[in-house]
């Protein structure tokens, strides 16, 4: 994910001597940021800036000057921003650990502590990282229950283990007026409860600012989405998935809005200048995440097979603009409008819409083994998309545990899928 390349540089520099001390030091992240500027790894400046933003947040969390909130992947970070806290997402840390090849050790640590091997590897790795003391100390843990059953349970365990309070947003299964009000009251109460505990304070001006930032980011995201509908697209999946960090840990932050705007501007410039020598034989919608450990999946998909992801599910805009006059209700609406919430039909309709809008002729679902929500719906998605005439491939694997990704089998299946797409036009 966002720190992958920088951490690779770390490994090259420090070899196996990467220690907990290095990873837990805020200076490491300052150093990584300087390194990032010099390396110019990404072809677009905005993508480097996203990585820089991630490193900045991580450094801030380890520095410990501001209260730190551990959050599950889909908790609204707008509230973290409004409370003046630093967000830290153990699931993102797990992805970084996978990139650093630390995940096997951390999952082993979790196994020794009693974690079941059936649980999601993001969570086993995050659990192991926490038990090892690798992560910045949290002041609070914030979880939302939607899309993932395991993360709130992991946070329950970690909350007891770390002796820090846990606040859970209970997200209903489908959106309507009642569920919006129910969720909005909870979000408000979570803020008030944190305030009462004296750990942080809700700043109403910052909350307004967060809402403004999200709307600003949304406009830029929509612009980028429109630009990516061009053929060839100015941004493909291997780069597009870098922005997942912004949607998981950056919503509501001013920097996030700026980065989306920068990315959209650069994408536009790319289109205007032309994208030489890049073949776009097939256009894909990419569902779920990708492997975060070292692998050549996207290189194979994009360079060898000519299949380019022009839209990623987790970075697409699905919500209406937020109303600054009703911030909690707006955030509740945003959470409840997530197409992956509730019965699969909603996700199916959404994916169909994305495929049509982006003129994609195939959909690939990276089926992360431990994800009940994503994997549980794949057969119904396949059936539904086939009825719409959209080819679908469920690629079995694991985002964090390289041992659970049958690489050769995946290559064969992707090659067969590419052959099948030859005749598929939407």
């Amino acid at each position, binding site marked *: 994910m966002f720190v992958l390349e920088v951490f690779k540089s770390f490994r090259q520099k420090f070899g196996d001597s990467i220690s907990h001390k290095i990873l837990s030091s805020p200076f490491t992240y300052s150093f990584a940021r300087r390194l990032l500027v010099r390396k110019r790894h990404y072809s677009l400046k905005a993508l480097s800036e996203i990585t820089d933003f991630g490193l900045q947040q991580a450094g801030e969390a380890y520095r410990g000057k501001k209260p730190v909130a551990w959050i599950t992947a889909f908790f609204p970070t707008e509230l973290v921003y409004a409370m003046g806290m630093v967000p830290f997402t153990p699931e993102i840390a797990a992805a970084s650990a996978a990139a650093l090849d630390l995940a096997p050790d951390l999952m082993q640590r979790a196994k020794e*502590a*009693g*974690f*079941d091997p*059936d*649980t*999601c590897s993001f969570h086993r790795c995050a659990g192991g990282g926490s038990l090892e003391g690798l992560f910045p100390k949290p002041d609070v843990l914030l979880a939302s*229950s939607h*899309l*993932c*059953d*395991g993360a*709130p*349970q*992991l946070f*329950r*365990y970690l909350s*007891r283990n770390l002796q820090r309070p*846990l606040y*859970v947003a*209970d997200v*209903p*299964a*489908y959106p309507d007026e*009642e*569920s919006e009000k*129910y969720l909005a*009251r*909870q979000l408000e*109460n979570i803020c008030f409860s944190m305030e009462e505990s004296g750990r942080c304070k809700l700043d109403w001006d910052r909350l307004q600012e967060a809402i403004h930032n999200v709307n600003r980011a949304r406009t830029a995201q929509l612009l980028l989405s429109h630009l990516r509908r061009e053929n060839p697209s100015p941004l493909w999946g291997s780069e597009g998935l870098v922005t997942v960090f912004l949607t998981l840990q950056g919503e509501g932050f001013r920097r996030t809005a700026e980065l989306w705007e920068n990315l959209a501007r650069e994408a536009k410039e790319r289109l205007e200048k032309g994208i030489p020598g890049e073949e776009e034989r097939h256009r894909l919608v990419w569902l779920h995440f990708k492997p975060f450990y070292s692998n050549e999946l996207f290189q194979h998909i994009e360079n060898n097979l000519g299949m380019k992801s022009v839209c990623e599910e987790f970075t697409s805009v699905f919500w209406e603009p937020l109303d600054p006059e009703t911030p909690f209700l707006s955030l509740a609406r945003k959470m409840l409008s997530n197409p992956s919430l*509730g*019965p*699969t*039909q909603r996700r199916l309709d959404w994916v169909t819409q994305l495929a049509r809008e982006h003129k994609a002729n195939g959909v690939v679902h990276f089926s992360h*083994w431990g994800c*009940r*929500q994503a*994997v*549980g*719906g*794949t*057969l*119904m998605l396949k*059936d539904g998309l086939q009825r719409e005439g959209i080819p679908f491939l469920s690629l079995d694997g694991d985002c964090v545990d390289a041992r659970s990704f049958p690489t050769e089998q995946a290559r064969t299946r992707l090659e067969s899928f590419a052959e099948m797409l030859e005749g598929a036009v939407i």
Partner: protein
Amino acid sequence: MGQKVAFTCSYVPPEVISAAGFQPLRLLPENDAPPVADAALPPTVCPYLRQIRQQVTNNNGDLAGLVVTSSCNAAIHFYASLHKEANFFVYLLDLPRKNSGDSTGYYARQIQDMAAFLEERGDPVKSDKLESMRQERRDAWKSLAKVSGYTGQNASPLPLPLYPEMRQLWENGAPNLKKRLEKHAVAQNPTAGNYSTGKPASDNNYNYDSYNGGVPSILVTGAPFSPGFLELLNQQEGFKFFLDECTTSRVLAPPSTEESISMGAEQDIWMTLASEYLEKTPCPRFFLQDDREEWFKTLISEGNYQGVIFHDLAFCDFNHYDALILGNVLESHGIPFLKIKSELGPGEMGQIQTRIEAFLEMIDT
């Protein structure tokens, strides 16, 4: 009583189903292996849900409908896989994860919406009928709790020999069960080790006699058990087994708002029902003020258990983390713990038997 309406979760109020003129039927795990290849649910989805999906899709017409709660992502997929294609109606009841005032209000509305849905397909759900059904069920629960030795604030785990009666409650409804229980002797607190027998009228061959002596008590908790798993426990001589899961003790705790249902306006009925169900003995899906660790500590402190067996359903995150938390509590109490991973199939029984026997042998020595 009309056609059956099945349900999947102990938080569904069967009295609402009854009041709409249907016969409530809790779908329980069976001994059949879940299908490996299912058209809608991949093999890494909850085996209980895959198993009952097979049960209900083989429905020969006596099932009018099915109520599914949004208990987990797998359950929502289960609902989605059936609601358009089944030859019966399927309803998704949204279940909160908290029991605050807001959650109660939200759940009251959800139950009320479910009642409206059911009465469109059955009888009008009148408040007096609902209250009557509720009282019948409450009486049955109370009787069962009494026979099982329920004494305190929390529901005591159910003695294994009473499981067939509990199954009757789920499969045939409350009135029959109450009559059946009235015929039996009332037990004393089984956890005190002096449980007195009263063989139920069912044709089961569960051994009550072993519950008389001062033999070791084993708590069996976790996910719902298959009949094969329980038969296996029943064959183990020299031990008393007490069951704690969502089809046994977790429905026995008395509601805290016992009398309020008949006191207020009609809206109060839904609030009372919602409150009763949300305040019952919690399942691991819930996030309450007193969390799972406290609940397990209470459970352990109220019983004199020499060992704990955890029935861990494959691919169930709630179960996996519950086992992790319970394991830590038991470690601090020095109580032996056995986690049995299960996919509910008959093929795994041999291995489970070996592990249980080895565990009990270790305790015995």
